[in-house]
């Protein structure tokens, strides 16, 4: 019986885990770096211990110190959250060997699914489709053509020696293949002194779709349905929703079954996520499995009305899952917006500073998984994720409208966030119509900026009045000196703001 859980993490996920623990009467132990002494997870935990200096390598990844805190605090279980040590099999093993419960899958499953090739092999065993392609680089033209024919067009040719798009080619048909391979090899040879190439299936307008699975050690494996995670930038997810507006029930069934098969095959226990790419022809391809709780797990919780962290703890405690597959019937629609300390309208430039004020949206169908507080200093040491805003609605339309309503109510002063970007993205017809894939963000980025520039005169007058009012208040509180030398223009003022105009 677990009584006290050490959460080997920080930020919103640590707070998330603490909340569920306290609701089931389990005490919590927070660890914090010196930069995080007054962060919310420290304030909300039952106990808190310093784990080292600010850099992750000396604190949240400092295994030795964490083991020491486990001993001092008497924690009988460890929840790793996501990131940091969550997919570190050795850490999982060490914990388990101490007689402390590891709230995650067995280390064998972590190792298998953490290895790209091993995961691919395992997927093949259960007949899960994987993206067809070469796993070894080739330099022979004949062999390359044969493989391309076998994979089927369109195919993607990639240079083995380097990245950055050099030597990369999309080939639509057999007529073009010879010429394309020759050119790719030549380009790659020049650029990287290595003319070997990979060939793989080119996925048209791919969607990133993942399945939330859960297994206990009584042989039960269930799926809680899919999450559509195609709103991405540089493989960083920004907005997720469930159900996916793109897939149909046939594909949904296929995805769920495939995910369950993979989960069963790797002797999984606990919460996991099986990621797929789905092309525009609704072909699915297994991508990888994340052997931990996912950032975007709340949307699955909303439509299933279940607390996945509590299920993790149940299962780690040796109990059965509280729900069986035939009781799982997702209801309604949920959307998550990730709140990053980044300026969505300036290439997602990170923002640091003090959170001076916050006005947080509330009300029916709105959930915030937060990891920040008023007065907090956002430091440059960690991931810029501040929290996640989640909306639920009976329909996709309602969930979207509710999210827009909530984002409009959300004011954070002191740092830039992705709130305005998320709002405009959700308002865009491509999202409204559910007509988007992993490349959509890149495609409509400029259009969003353009819309932002369409300023009404009213807003300009409003902004001016505010500035004048603030100016008067500032002058009153501190007699201003107009001859004072003022320091001007770093790229915050000159670069970033130019973009906003």
């Amino acid at each position: 019986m677990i009584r006290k859980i050490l959460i080997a993490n920080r930020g919103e996920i640590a707070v998330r885990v603490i909340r569920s623990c306290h609701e089931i009467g389990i005490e919590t132990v927070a660890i914090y770096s010196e930069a995080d002494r007054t962060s919310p997870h420290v304030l909300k935990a039952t106990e808190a211990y310093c784990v080292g200096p600010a850099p992750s390598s000396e604190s949240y990844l400092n295994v030795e110190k964490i083991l020491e805190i486990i001993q001092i605090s008497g924690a009988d279980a460890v929840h790793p959250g996501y990131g940091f040590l969550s997919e570190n099999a050795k850490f999982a093993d060490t914990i388990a060997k101490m007689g402390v419960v590891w709230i995650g899958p067995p280390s064998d499953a972590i190792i298998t699914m953490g290895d790209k090739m091993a995961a691919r092999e395992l997927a093949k065993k259960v007949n899960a489709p994987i993206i067809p392609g070469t796993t070894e680089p080739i330099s022979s033209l004949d062999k390359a053509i044969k493989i391309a024919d076998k994979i089927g067009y369109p195919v993607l040719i990639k240079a083995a020696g380097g990245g950055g798009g050099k030597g990369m080619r999309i080939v639509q048909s057999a007529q073009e293949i010879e010429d394309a391979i020759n050119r790719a090899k030549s380009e790659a040879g020049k650029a990287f002194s290595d003319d070997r190439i990979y060939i793989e299936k080119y996925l048209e307008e791919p969607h990133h779709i993942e399945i939330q699975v859960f297994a206990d050690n009584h042989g039960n494996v269930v799926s809680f349905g899919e999450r559509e995670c195609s709103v991405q930038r540089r493989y960083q997810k920004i907005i997720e929703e469930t159900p996916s507006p793109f897939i149909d029930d046939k594909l949904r069934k296929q995805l769920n079954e495939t995910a369950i098969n993979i989960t069963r095959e790797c002797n999984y226990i606990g919460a996991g996520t099986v990621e797929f790419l789905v092309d525009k022809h609704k072909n699915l391809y297994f991508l990888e499995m994340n052997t931990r709780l996912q950032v975007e797990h709340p949307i699955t919780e909303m439509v299933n009305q279940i607390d996945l962290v509590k299920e993790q703890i149940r299962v780690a405690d040796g109990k059965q899952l509280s729900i069986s597959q035939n009781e799982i019937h997702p209801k309604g629609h949920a959307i998550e917006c990730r709140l990053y300390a980044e300026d969505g309208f300036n290439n997602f430039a990170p923002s640091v500073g003090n959170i001076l004020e916050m006005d947080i949206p509330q009300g029916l169908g709105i959930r915030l998984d937060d990891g920040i507080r008023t007065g907090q200093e956002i430091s440059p040491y960690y991931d810029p994720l501040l929290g996640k805003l989640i909306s639920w609605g009976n329909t996709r339309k309602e969930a979207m409208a509710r999210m827009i309503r909530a984002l409009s109510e959300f004011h954070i002063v002191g740092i830039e966030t992705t709130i305005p970007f998320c709002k405009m993205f959700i308002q865009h017809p491509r999202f409204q119509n559910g007509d988007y894939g992993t490349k959509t963000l890149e495609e409509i980025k400029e259009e969003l900026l353009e819309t932002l520039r369409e300023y009404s005169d009213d807003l300009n007058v409003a902004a001016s009045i505010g500035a004048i009012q603030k100016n008067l208040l500032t002058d009153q509180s501190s007699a201003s000196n107009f001859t004072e030398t003022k320091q001007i223009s770093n790229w915050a003022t000159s670069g970033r703001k130019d973009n906003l105009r």
Partner: protein
Amino acid sequence: MKFQAIIDEQILNFDVEQTACGLDISFNDNNLDADCRPLTSNSFSLILNGKSHYLTITENDNSFEVTVDQHTNLVKVKDETELLLDKFGFSDSDEDHAGEIHAQIPGLVTQIYAEIGSSIEKGQKLFILEAMKMENEISSPVSGVVKNILVEIGLPVEKNDLIMEIEI
């Protein structure tokens, strides 16, 4: 009292009188139905012609960063004294510093794409600053010639450190 607001390259002229019930504001000589009240140090409620707006305002060097209904703009405000100085040519120009590229956040410079003396177009990438577990590409806010580079690859920089100077 006369005020000039410079926003989005437009100049807006206001006439503001402080009365018992707050500010009496005219814009382009038309009296506005405007009521602006502070909520906290950085938030304001403005009712303008019946419409309710939520404003957040922070001071940023000699400008105000004003967010109205989640649209952010930089607004410069000049009061009567400053307008008078302008008139007589004493205004302090921002242009002197426009080519200074500072680090907006602490981080590590991992790439530099320019050399001293090279010509730079506005929007061209200058260097990469690694922070918050991300690579951040910094582009030039201006066109000009690189006059000075004050950092080296692999060295950490603090917030507001001067990284490059570009002669416009």
